[in-house]
């Protein structure tokens, strides 16, 4: 098979959400001498873009994206050693969590998987994360972006409190809030840099922020 066929195959199995195939094709491509950068840019990132397009065309839904994201992660896992050997930095560091008092984490799970699948360094704090934990971890890890997730309307309050604490601690990571409840108005009100109504929008906006910072998906 040609190099191109190999990558097309990789894209297809990722989009189809086939974890096992994604892992094995990525391995085959690496073994065949293909540079990890090519696999990443021409395979994995393209697959991610295609998943997003399908979602936007309403051919893909949350379920499909979650499964594709798993395949994305499986392929990425294969590339990791080669990337580390080449001292390739991750495109960005993201700290993410569902705010205190909210146990919902489906949107956050999707964002985490898709970002990890693109090679981001994602620190997932889980759900019910107190403001102090966000602040402490942000000081320790100095992330590019902090993502606050929440489904409940009550979470707006807690997001505002968390952001206030982050600013008090002079943490200058970009802050993006996500969840069905957030609106542009709420975003401005509570001092976030941006907001996303669903996981895919979150991923797109994170990619955009990272690119504008000169980093971005490799």
């Amino acid at each position, binding site marked *: 098979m040609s190099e191109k066929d190999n990558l097309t195959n990789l894209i297809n199995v990722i989009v189809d*959400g086939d974890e096992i195939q994604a892992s094995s094709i990525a391995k085959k491509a690496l073994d065949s001498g293909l540079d990890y950068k090519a696999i990443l840019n021409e395979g994995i990132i393209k697959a991610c873009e295609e998943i997003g397009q399908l979602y936007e065309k*309403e051919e893909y*839904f*949350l*379920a*499909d994206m*979650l*499964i594709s994201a*798993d395949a994305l992660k499986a392929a990425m896992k294969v590339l990791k050693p080669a990337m580390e050997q080449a001292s390739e930095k991750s495109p960005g560091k993201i700290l993410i969590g569902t705010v205190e*008092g909210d*146990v*919902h*984490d*489906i949107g956050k*799970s*999707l964002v985490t998987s898709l970002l990890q699948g693109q090679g981001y360094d994602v620190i997932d704090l889980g*759900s*019910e994360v107190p403001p102090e934990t966000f602040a402490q971890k942000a000081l320790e890890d100095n992330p590019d972006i902090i993502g606050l997730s929440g489904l*409940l*309307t*009550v979470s*707006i*309050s807690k997001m*505002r409190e968390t952001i206030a604490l982050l600013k008090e601690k002079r943490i200058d990571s970009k802050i993006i809030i996500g969840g*069905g*409840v*957030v*609106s542009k*108005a*709420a975003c*401005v*009100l509570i001092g976030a840099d941006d907001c996303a*109504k*669903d996981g895919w929008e979150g991923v797109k906006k994170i990619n955009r922020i990272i690119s504008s910072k000169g980093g971005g998906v490799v």
Partner: protein
Amino acid sequence: MPHDWVKSALRLMNAMAGKTKKVDRVPYFALINEQMLCRVAGVTVKEMLSSPEIYAKAVIGSYEFLEADTIQIPTSYAGPGEALAFAESNDKLDTIRWYDYKPLSIIQGAVCKTEEDIDKLEIPDHSKSSIWKVSTEAANIVNEKTKFPQMFGLGIWSVVQELRGVQAFKDMRKNPELLLKLCEKVYESQLDVFKFWTEKVGFSPMIMLTGYSFNKHMMSFDDAMKFEGQFIKRLQEKTKVPFIFHNCGTSPYFMEACKEIEFAAVNGSHPLDLDYWIKFKESYPNVTIMGANIDVSREMLTGTPQDVEEKVRDNIIALAPGGRYVCSPVCCLPWGVPLGNIMAIPRALEKYGQYPLKIQ
């Protein structure tokens, strides 16, 4: 002046039937959850749920204070409360989270982590469930004191998602049969809790159905029909009462759902603008619109009472002619929304909502 609940009930009933000649003004449907009760009554959630008397008193006091035309206790809905009952009856009490001034809930996905958890999942014995005991007793007190018929709420996907979490979405593709098995168990439990409610509290004149899966951000319409819609139809056959279709997602399938399933009313709006609702009213003239586009996370959260008043007026102009419009902010009234903005709704209804309508 004591609240006239009989008048409110008639106002609501006649508006929903389109009999505007018998309606003095647009009715106000308030979906008040535990947070709002805490704010108005000044109690903690644990306090409320520790006693049907305290709970009922908080509910009556709050709905009357907010000048609503409806009254129901927030846990008269087999959503998160059902997930709790499942947690209780399956010895997973450690998945429950209590908060002082927020609804209690369970950790998503913790009750049905594994396939075996689904196989072994026991339908709760609702007569032994602590949450259902206090809820039905409180509803009885509310019923007795207000004579306002107590409405019950059902929902499939809401409970499935609480029990199975993010894995439910992966099951949809990887193991749909397993997911349907869980849906079936939730369905059975919904029927059982409905029966229990009817025995304890009496006949529910309508059912508020939270079709949370009917939202484009959740799943395709076909999947929504498969994993929730078919069960809704079965619930309708068994319960034989009109359903209000509730969804406060960002892209709900209201039009599509109404084509497939018969609903007396739809309740939702999050991001939909008035044009959507005007079109909906044209397409489904007999389906009452409850809510339209007064958004708790936008103007109610960040605006002024004047902003809210204008929004109510715009909704009335667009949707109230001919009746079958019930004013309601969407969704639950949360922390963050100042009371001044909330109280602007009944003020605006008095000002603009009188039938025959003066503004059009």
